């Protein structure tokens, strides 16, 4: 075990994957010898050469097009998109290509070796275009997996699983936690199951569902609620596609109440999917409406970031409202 931050955990996963198979490639804007603007890929060129870890020209649609082709050839392609905000030029390659590659060919071809890494989320004074949480844009796409770790331990195990999973995976990294989140992480290889939610705190009064950087807010809010004698269960969804509806449903059948929190704007976010599914599965168990605590329906603002951000206080208020409904 070693103490690692989230970036180091990701770097360690990449290192292990590249050592494990010659067919693993890592690339993106500035990800070569320089190691990426966040340094997630640092040291990889030195260790594995400039043909295994390299810079791309500045073109996200090309990065994903190239990655799809490389994966279809039987390689493991790990493509970094520098910021989640810049993934949209690659939207067609991901949604129309990666996700449908196997299905449309009747399994003659697939891009299972593809993993897309991208930092996402706010709280870093990044304004409109360095703060977005675009996961919901992808969650409407059968064929894709979406995975979001909440801490270094999860990041390493999930990234290793994602890289070698036989399906294309969008792996979103909460950049606010890159250096802020540290913890004990095994130095050797290990994997964590995709598609499985994680109960990070048990409780009996109310369920909070979160993912990525919001798990911290959920936990903090749960602590604060505990002071009021409210016993919250906190579930980290971990995978958004496919997502572990059973774990959430079981929890809600126990607690009777659900708060879902996400950084992204409210409308048509993934919290809406969770709420829609759970009201269906747990209709007779619900004691109050499922609450969504989300960003406002505006672009991500710079100067009002603190106000816009979904912090633990907002989650806490939603808990109280739900308890007193």
């Amino acid at each position, binding site marked *: 075990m070693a103490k690692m931050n989230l970036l180091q955990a990701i770097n360690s996963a990449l290192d292990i994957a590249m050592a494990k198979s010659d067919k693993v490639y890592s690339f993106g804007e500035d990800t070569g010898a320089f190691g990426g603007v966040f340094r997630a890929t640092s040291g990889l060129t030195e260790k594995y050469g400039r043909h295994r870890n390299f810079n791309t020209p500045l*073109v996200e649609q090309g990065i994903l097009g190239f990655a799809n082709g490389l994966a279809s050839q039987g390689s493991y392609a790990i493509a970094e998109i520098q910021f989640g905000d810049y993934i949209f030029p690659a939207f067609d390659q991901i949604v129309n290509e990666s996700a449908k590659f196997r299905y449309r060919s009747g399994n003659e071809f697939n891009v299972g070796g593809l993993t897309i890494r991208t930092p996402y989320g706010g709280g870093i004074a990044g304004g409109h275009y360095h703060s977005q949480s675009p996961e919901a844009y992808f969650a409407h796409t059968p064929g894709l997996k979406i995975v979001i770790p909440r801490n270094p331990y999860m990041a390493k195990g999930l990234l290793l699983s994602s890289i070698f999973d036989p399906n294309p995976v969008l792996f979103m990294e909460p950049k606010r936690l890159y250096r802020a989140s540290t913890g004990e992480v095994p130095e050797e290889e290990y994997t964590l199951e995709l598609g499985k939610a994680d109960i990070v705190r048990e409780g009996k009064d109310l369920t909070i569902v979160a993912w990525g950087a919001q798990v911290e807010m959920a936990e903090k809010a749960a602590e604060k609620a505990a002071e009021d004698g409210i016993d919250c269960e906190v579930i980290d969804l971990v995978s958004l596609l496919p997502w572990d509806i059973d774990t959430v449903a079981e929890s809600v059948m126990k607690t009777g109440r659900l708060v879902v929190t996400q950084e992204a704007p409210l409308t048509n976010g993934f919290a809406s999917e969770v709420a829609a599914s759970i009201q269906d599965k747990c209709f007779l168990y619900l004691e109050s409406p499922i609450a969504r605590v989300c960003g406002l329906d505006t672009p991500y603002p710079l100067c009002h970031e603190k106000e816009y951000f979904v912090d633990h206080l907002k989650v806490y208020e939603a808990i109280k409202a739900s308890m007193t409904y």
Partner: protein
Amino acid sequence: MATDKKHQLEIVTEPQFLDGSALQIPMLQILKEDGTVHKGAKLPDIDKELALKMFDTMQFIRILDERMIAAQRQGRISFYLSSLGEEAASIGSAAALDDGDMIMGQYREQGALAYRGFTVEQFMDQLFSNERDLGKGRQMPVHYGCAALNFMTIASPLATQIPQATGYAYGQKMDKDGKCTICYFGEGAASEGDFHAALNMASVYKVPVIFFCRNNGYAISTPSQGEQYGGDGIAPRGVAYGMKTIRVDGNDIFAVYQATQLARKLAVEDNEPVLIEGMSYRMAGHSTSDDPTGYRTRDEEASWRAKDPLSRFQAYLIKKKWLTEKDAEENFAEKKAAVLAALKEAEKIPAPHIDELIKDVYDTPTPQLRAQLEQLKAHIRKYPEAYPKTASRIDGGDK
């Protein structure tokens, strides 16, 4: 280094604007329109057997295309898209490749696929979306694909396969397997952002890929010159990317073959990506959904009929005495009969079982998908008459 290059730049002290005229790219032609060889032209190294295989494939595709356009009119298939007039481009280039090279097509490269050995039954199974279709009936007609023949499944979104070809070729280069990728696309698709990404990246990474642009004058109704691009076609872009580039007469199977053979050598031996622009003409409508009389003249079409790649090649072969008129006719009749027979057989084969609906979304169906399928099957059992294609076989699946 970023700076080295700049030091080498020639300096001028008077402003001079260049434009398209600074780079006009000629077109390679070996066979003239009448099937005779240009004086002084060196023929590619093609023996009788190879020449006849190429010719056979052209003839087969011509028959298949004409027959299936008719089948669509008869309502037997929903849609078809022919390569009439462009057979030399795909077949001449495919013939110059190794069978292990990957082919990524747009949707008008049935010739390359037939050359690789896709059978008439396999074509029909795809066209009729029956349960033998390798693609499991999931895509529209002409979206062929076959891993065994290294022919990537066609998909409708244009140009997406071009950067994919760069990536595929990168893997081939790293595997050092001596193989390359050829990627076909239309001059219309070359306007997409993916084209730019693909060629620029190939030039940076130096991968064994051949970009083959079929410039057939139209993208559906949009004429290429002046409405699709303002310059001298697609080839100059290759030069701008610093890439080996050549323009050929796409209706001259020898020019196509020769350029592709040399391109393959550059790609495989030197890891040089190559751009080939094949000039041709889409003789039929864009697809069976299209009527070209809305946007071009019969005269224009007629002027291109004179350049037909099939009759041009046939004239050469007959002159060369590798073929007689009679052989050509007999072969034609034989192939036509085979196409008809396969068509009749394929249209009787049932559609894939409903259980196939949720397969291949992921490597294995998720619990959610299984539940959705079960719900759907229960619904079909309730209303069998509303879903006649699948209802009768619903409980004979393979689950």
